[in-house]
């Protein structure tokens, strides 16, 4: 069997696997779009492969890559079972990310086809848009959302997907140009990360925090020499953090800190793709001040809620200014980047969020403290239910406020809710809110 014959055989194998995929049930959209797209791609691939010269190793190499990609995608599809990830959260995430990822492709305009699956590992949060280099990418891109399998119920941590939306947007050429020009330009304009040589000098600075010096001492000099590609990756991370902040609001701050410090408890490690956490936190500190989130508690009248918000801001926003070394951007730089990012997202149809009004937040926090899933259902003695529209990001923020706030219920009794139960309550609240949204939408249709 020569290479060409084997590749044609593998096309058959992928087709057979695609049929197997239909044995399962899928959430986050049906399998129909994916199935049709794949049939089209497989058909095109075979039609190009059959007449290929068996001695054309370059062409066969390209076909092998394409078939391998299809094999990977069909496997992801097969693993996209509802039940391994919270689909109500995923549906809300789609409403945020899909408009941003809609684009003009070679033959037709369309929203990407969403696939969701779970993977092992705490750092597996991903939103991947298939790149447009594939010769078969003639239809719609496959847009893959990956959840950590063991964090299935931890919707509060899933706010980190705000950061991943940034990576997805970066793969879309029209957004990349705008983000480079408007968001990254102010961040790169000055400061210690202005160039690779300055960044290297900054990392080797004698005044760096102790943990940085300790890490430096563990490695050879090469490790502290910042390369161009590395610096570009770091800036992409900074930008994606700003995406997370404006798309998910306060809950992003908490998820960001909790997850990143779990992966690097020192908060000072750096790598080829990621800058030290403390620098990212310092940037978010400036962004929060620019957005005036640090003053949020002062507008709250309810004493308990105000105390919870103060505790939250103290933990995740930081009450003291970052140290001089990790403060790689000025407040003006961060403000310019944030102010440029919000209109880009709004223009694409991705809604940004900020700290919610007290009237929106308080009922959700009270429900959670009373161990009731937080949603927009209200039956205050009347026999006509009031179904409020609730932004799912407010539910996440309420969850974090309760996680780190006081344990008093509305009747004054103390009740500790563990983090898993709290997440499950929020997950259930998101599910119930989906039902309310659906009912409200149908009602609006009737009224219209």
């Amino acid at each position: 069997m020569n290479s060409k014959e084997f590749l044609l055989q593998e096309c058959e194998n992928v087709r057979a696997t695609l049929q197997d995929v239909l044995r399962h049930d899928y959430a986050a959209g049906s399998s129909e779009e994916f199935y049709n797209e794949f049939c089209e791609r497989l058909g095109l691939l075979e039609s190009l492969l059959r007449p290929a010269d068996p001695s054309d190793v370059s062409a066969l190499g390209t076909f092998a890559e394409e078939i391998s990609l299809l094999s990977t995608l069909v496997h992801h599809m097969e693993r996209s079972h509802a039940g391994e990830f919270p689909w109500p959260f995923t549906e809300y995430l789609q409403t945020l990310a899909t408009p941003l990822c809609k684009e003009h492709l070679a033959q037709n305009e369309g929203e990407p086809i969403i696939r969701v699956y779970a993977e092992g590992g705490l750092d597996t949060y991903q939103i991947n848009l298939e790149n447009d280099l594939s010769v078969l990418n003639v239809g719609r891109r496959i847009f893959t959302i990956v959840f950590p399998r063991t964090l299935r119920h931890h919707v509060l941590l899933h706010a980190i997907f705000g950061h991943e939306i940034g990576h997805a947007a970066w793969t879309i050429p029209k957004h990349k140009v705008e983000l480079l020009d408007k968001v990254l330009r102010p961040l790169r304009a000055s400061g210690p990360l202005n160039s690779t040589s300055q960044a290297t000098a900054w990392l080797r600075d004698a005044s760096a925090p102790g943990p940085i010096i300790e890490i430096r001492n563990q490695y050879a000099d090469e490790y502290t020499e910042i390369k161009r590609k590395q610096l570009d990756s770091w800036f992409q991370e900074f930008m994606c953090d700003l995406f997370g902040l404006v798309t998910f609001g306060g809950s992003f701050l908490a998820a960001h800190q909790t997850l990143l410090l779990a992966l690097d408890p020192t908060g000072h490690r750096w790598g080829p793709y990621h800058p030290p956490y403390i620098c990212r936190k310092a940037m978010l500190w400036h962004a929060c001040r620019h957005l005036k989130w640090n003053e949020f508690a002062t507008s709250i009248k309810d004493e308990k809620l105000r105390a919870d918000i103060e505790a939250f801001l103290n933990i995740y926003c930081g009450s003291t200014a970052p140290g001089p070394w990790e403060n790689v951007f000025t407040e003006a730089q961060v403000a310019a980047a944030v102010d440029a990012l919000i209109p880009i997202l709004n223009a694409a149809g991705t809604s940004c969020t900020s700290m919610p009004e007290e009237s929106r937040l308080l009922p959700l926090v009270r429900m959670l403290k009373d161990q009731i899933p937080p949603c927009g259902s209200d039956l205050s003695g009347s026999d006509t239910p009031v179904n409020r529209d609730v932004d799912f990001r407010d539910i996440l923020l309420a969850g974090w406020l309760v996680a780190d706030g006081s344990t008093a219920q509305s009747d004054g009794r103390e009740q500790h809710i563990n983090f898993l139960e709290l997440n499950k309550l929020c997950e259930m609240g998101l599910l119930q809110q989906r039902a309310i949204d659906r009912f409200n939408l149908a009602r609006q249709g009737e009224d219209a």
Partner: protein
Amino acid sequence: MSALVKATILRKIAENQLVVSPIISAGQLGASSIDLRLGNVFLMVRARGLSDVDPGRFAHSDSTTGDHAIQQARRQKHERYEAPFGHKFLLHPGMLALVPTLEWIKLPANLQGIVTARSSWAREGLSIATASLIHPGYKGVITLELANLGQIPLGLYPGLRIAQIAFHTLTEDAKEKDMGSRFNMAFEPVEGNVAHEDEPFLPKKKA
């Protein structure tokens, strides 16, 4: 002991003594009951090699520990299916499915809930609950044991109103120590343990 009427149910909800959340439509509120909607998880028995109900096998073991065979038998007894809104679930004749309500229930110490079928669904052959008593102090979703007693499959969609709950006052508050339940704070159906506290009547565990 008496059943609550609508006005009393509404007052208790307004005063946060009773929780049924969410109540999405006014149509859910009956004269002395509240309609409950179908949730999104379905646990169905898998008819295959490891799917028998043998209390002897489950005795002397809690739900999270134990040897591989016991845990595997527990986990493999049911198929878990999660259906988003708008997706259909077919309940075939003779089939049993454990499903949650969409609503979260919280009962005070002086109320118990009685869950029954909505008559329109009962007329189609749908049996809702065989264990229909909800104890005072309970909080969580309610697990419904759906069975199709008719001759043709029933199409069910999450969000449909399929059951109803009525509330009865008790002669006095239930005691805190009596209100614990293995199924408290339930977010979805779980398999029961038919051996629980009946171990003396079952074969002894092999050493």
